[in-house]
């Protein structure tokens, strides 16, 4: 069978995100692929330069629909460090609780999506049903299901009442029970194993070389978690473990994410039970002094980096957001070569791509898309971005 070009995206049932893969396949095997990142430029970084610190946080929260707390916290914690503020312990714990609940809902969502990509819709429905419990908790605590709006420079906006803590704690045992069920299911469900094992394998060296982050990297045995390596919020005080795996395939990523789900429930439980008393915010100056900070944060999808520069006013000079998905693209493109067409959705979904974060920068709609690799050549990180003279086949 001759080589065929299969367009995947920007409108495709598997990738409900504005990204375009042109997969060149020989039969069912992927020979090479061309990647178009995004179709939607929102100009958030430019807009962030125009707003003061109060008004910029809701904007940054809307960088991403899933990890909204991550962006706001990464920014707030950077600005607080520039200002030299120490936020109260209670605020730190509340931020941690929201962050871990967010991780839980993101990973549950991911598990459902991964199951859906292989047609296992029952697991998809179940995880999304259980995700509702997390979202209800978040809604009770913050007032919204997705954009929590809990952060402000110098602390958090709303306090947790005793009733909210009790309600959240009462939901945890159910979730823990469910997560145990999922561990069991993932380890015993035959079709899931057969589709996840050995797919999109990435060795430790490759994961490091191509700059994979988050669960994608940890599944390949890269022991890299900002929460432990550069502790922020309450992570230094809470007992928890970094989950890693050595398999490096989609199954390994699933195991890492489910393991992180479990760790998250334990972190949330510890924080709720040991919530310190005290104020939830400190007074902040209006202006930040001149300075720069690389604020790193372990978002559900991986390491998120905000490079913030201030100039002594109440606005940032520049905020450069590097989202985990952008860091993971190189590795995913590398993973896909020589895999089956049927595995594209699974492999791409395995990094949990969030185009909303990534394409905050992007508008792409090119007719003459670049050839990214020569015919039958394995795709390396360099070749992914095209070489001169390969525009025409």
């Amino acid at each position, binding site marked *: 069978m001759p080589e065929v070009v299969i367009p995947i995206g920007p409108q495709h049932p598997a990738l409900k995100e504005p990204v375009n893969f042109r997969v060149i396949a020989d039969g069912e095997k992927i020979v090479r692929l061309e990647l178009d990142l995004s179709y939607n*430029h929102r100009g958030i970084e430019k807009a962030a330069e125009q707003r003061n610190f109060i008004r910029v946080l809701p904007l940054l929260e809307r960088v991403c629909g899933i990890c909204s707390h991550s962006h706001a916290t990464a920014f707030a914690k950077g600005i607080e460090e520039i200002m030299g503020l120490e936020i109260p312990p209670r605020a730190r714990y509340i931020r941690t609780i929201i962050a871990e609940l967010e991780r839980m809902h993101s990973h549950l969502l991911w598990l459902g999506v991964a199951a859906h990509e292989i047609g296992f819709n029952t697991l998809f429905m179940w995880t999304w049903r259980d995700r509702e419990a997390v979202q209800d908790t978040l809604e009770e605590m913050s007032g919204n299901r997705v954009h929590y709006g809990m952060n402000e420079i110098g602390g958090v906006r709303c306090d947790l009442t005793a009733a909210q803590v009790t309600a959240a704690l009462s939901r945890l045992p159910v979730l823990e029970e469910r997560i145990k069920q999922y561990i069991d299911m993932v380890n015993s469900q035959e079709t899931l194993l057969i589709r996840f094992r050995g797919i999109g394998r990435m060795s430790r060296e490759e994961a490091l070389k191509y700059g994979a982050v988050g669960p994608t990297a940890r599944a390949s045995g890269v022991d890299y978690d900002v929460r432990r390596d550069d502790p922020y919020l309450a992570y230094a005080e809470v007992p928890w473990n970094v989950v890693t795996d050595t398999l490096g395939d989609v199954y390994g990523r699933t195991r890492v994410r489910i393991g992180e789900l479990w760790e998250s429930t334990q972190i949330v439980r510890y924080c709720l039970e040991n919530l310190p008393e005290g104020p939830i915010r400190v007074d902040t100056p209006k202006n930040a002094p001149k300075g720069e900070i690389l604020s790193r944060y372990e978002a559900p999808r991986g390491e998120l980096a905000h490079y913030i520069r201030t100039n002594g006013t109440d606005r940032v000079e*520049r905020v450069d957001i590097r989202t985990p998905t952008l860091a993971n693209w190189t590795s995913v493109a590398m993973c896909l070569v020589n895999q089956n067409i049927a595995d594209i959705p699974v492999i791409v979904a395995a990094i949990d791509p969030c185009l909303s974060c990534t394409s905050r920068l992007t508008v792409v*709609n090119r007719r003459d898309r670049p050839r990214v690799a020569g015919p039958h050549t394995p795709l390396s990180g360099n070749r992914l971005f095209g070489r001169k003279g390969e525009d025409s086949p």
Partner: protein
Amino acid sequence: MTGTVTPETIQEMLRDFGTVEQVRKNRIRVSTVPGRLHDAIMTSQAVLFVDRLITISAVDNGETFELLYHLIGPHRIIITFVLNIPRNSPVTPTVSDILPPAGIYERQIHDLFGITFGGHPGLKKLMLNEDWPENEHPLRKDWKPGPDTFYGGIKVERS
């Protein structure tokens, strides 16, 4: 092997490449020049076990463009190499040959700031669409949307 790498050793090692200062307990900032960057990264990869590029940040600070290469290794100390590139000829050599993930960040910066990375294998538009006007780079400080220009099919209405 990584136990020997401390902020002090890093400062010692990278002293040759420019001004070194420790800006945070786990972050070293090295101001260097475009010509030395390659060697600096190679040295840190070889000696300081740097294995990962966190990101490349770009800042337009009025007179120059500032490029910041944030690298990290198993010692979990961020090494930031800072380059200043003149605004009138924004060209710097690429590092995507020694750090594969840099390719995607460099393309992003090329789009948004108009900095050219010499030797980059495919410095094409990644972030902005095809009908984006040439020589307009939205994250430059002096960029204003033109009144009659279409950006991705949309004309910006100035109020």
